[in-house]
């Protein structure tokens, strides 16, 4: 079990180092996803499958996709299409691919050989997480909600633009 942890940890460190050394934001993101997947594998072998799933769904899934969308929305037009083709050269995805493959191999191996009863550590599943969030840490959850509210209100205020005075059809014509 130890060796699996160390491999996953190594993958996490290598991919994070690659994140901060890449010059291209999209390449960095690919490595960042691998890094998050590696952390999720660590959570899994530590006996927290629910948190591992959350890590994949929330971070590697939702947040990363959001960032990629934001980058793509900012680069529209012919030039960016060409650039996107360049981004998809094997040279760029082969590194993250290999690291992700290592993690996949680890996961398959663990799923085959790993039985919770044989191991001494307790498995913390979704029910346990839910129970503690709604009993011991209920006030903490409320506080986190307040933090999100502060974030949303702040982002709304800072991001709010002055309303244009002219009608939107006129605005379109002006662009033409």
């Amino acid at each position, binding site marked *: 079990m130890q060796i699996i942890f160390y491999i996953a940890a190594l993958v996490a460190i290598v991919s994070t180092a690659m994140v901060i050394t890449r010059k291209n934001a999209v390449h960095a993101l690919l490595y960042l996803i691998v890094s998050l997947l590696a952390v999720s594998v660590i959570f899994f072998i530590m006996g927290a499958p629910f948190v591992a799933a959350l890590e994949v769904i929330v971070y590697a899934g939702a947040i990363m996709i959001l960032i990629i969308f934001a980058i793509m929305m900012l680069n529209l037009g012919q030039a960016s299409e060409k650039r996107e083709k360049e981004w998809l050269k094997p040279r760029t995805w082969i590194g993250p691919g290999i690291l992700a493959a290592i993690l996949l191999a680890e996961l398959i191996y663990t799923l085959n050989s790993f039985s919770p009863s044989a191991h001494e550590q307790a498995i913390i599943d979704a029910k346990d997480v839910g129970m503690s969030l709604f009993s011991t840490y*209920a006030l903490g959850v409320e506080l986190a909600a*307040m933090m999100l509210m*502060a974030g949303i*209100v*702040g982002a*709304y*205020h*800072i991001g709010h633009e002055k309303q244009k005075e002219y009608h939107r059809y006129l605005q379109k014509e002006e662009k033409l």
Partner: protein
Amino acid sequence: MISLTGLNLILPQLIIALAAIIVMLSIAVKRCHRFTNLFTLLSFAAAAISVLYIPRGSFGVSSLFVVDGFGKFFTVLIACAGFVITLMSYHYLNAREKRNEEYYILLLLSSLGALTMVISNHFVSFFLSLEVLSVSLYALIGYLKEEPAGIESGIKYLVLAAVSSSFLLFGIALIYMQTGHLDLSGIAAGLSSSGEFSGVFIAGLAMVIVGIGFKMALVPFHLWTPDIYAGASAPVSAFVATVSKGAVFAFLLRLFYSTGGLENKNVWTVFTIIAVASMLFGNWLALRQQNIKRLLAYSSIGHLGYLMVAFLAITDRGMQAATFYLVVYFTGMLAAFGTVIYMSNKKGEALYIDDYRGLFWKKPWLAAIFTTVMLSLAGIPLTAGFLGKLYLLTAGTEVGIWLLVIVLVVSSGIGLFYYLRVVAVMFAGKNENEASSEPVIGKIFPHGLVLTLLFLLLLWFGVYPSSLLEIIQQIASVIR
């Protein structure tokens, strides 16, 4: 399970949280700056008064919070500071920004973060409170969108606070790894069973010190302070200087006193170095400042250094001295920033010391108040600042931490220079080039009234401190 009986213990926090939600919903219905401001004022007042309805004694609320005399005292202090800042914000915001209502949501939420932090008894609640406080502050600091400096300092604060939070989280993880607990009593128990401090635990504590030191702007972690104070609007600077720092200091007391972290010689030495550096550098860097907000920023670094002297005394007396000094510091800083708000106009704030030239001949009362505030911050007799420093010194000399005491005296001497420089400018001849014909923001009501009240408080605590000290003596022995 959480029971409804426990909820009356956190009544002030609930009031502020509810107020933030109501203000948000009221904006959705109709924007009205006057109503929002009044409602925020009322909720701060209600939060302060509701403390009276909390029974005496020390109660735990769902293992995350502990409500005791110490927590209640700081709750009142923060609610009062929030009240004063709200009162001073109304005309300021009217003059300088069009959409003002969100400001009060953010102000309420950041006060909520501070209010929950002072009763935190658990790293989870501490970290969440800290994030509520910081996330609202990011937006508050950059609130005036027309000001490039405000947005710039907002982003600076965002990046630096995020880095310091990650330090803090890693430190908490290391402490958890060593003791197996996140609640402070559990950490204390885990420590006493193992006896010696292990390397991992010390590393964890060091990282927590980095995170807390950043929030309190102690010297190696102070670089953000002048820029953020100068860039943010004056009411927000006042908030950062008082509420944000005071709440973190309250948790620092709780953390290190209840876990006994200061009993380790190395940790104590690190704090001594931080305190000495804060006192010296804070006062030294303020000497040549022309910008009054930067001057106050450096002066606040120095004041937090003074507070650390009482913190390092580890006695009941030290605790009382620190609490007393914090009240005096809150009053002084609020009044100082209140004067800056008073003197500001539509175009900009009265940032430079020259803006106050000859103030005595134009507005003698305001000049008298500002002089008293500066003298109190400097620690001249008959003002509260003097007695505050006197208590810090007695707390220090009692346990014989001579290095800290001597540095305190020396740096106070250095500090005297720049405080008196401001006073001298106010009494100097009239400003020849009256550049700004804009009227000042300050009005007799509320600014004049609030400033007079804070001025009277500074004199009252300076002449007759026992009224405050009696309360402090009751609460300060509870924490240990």
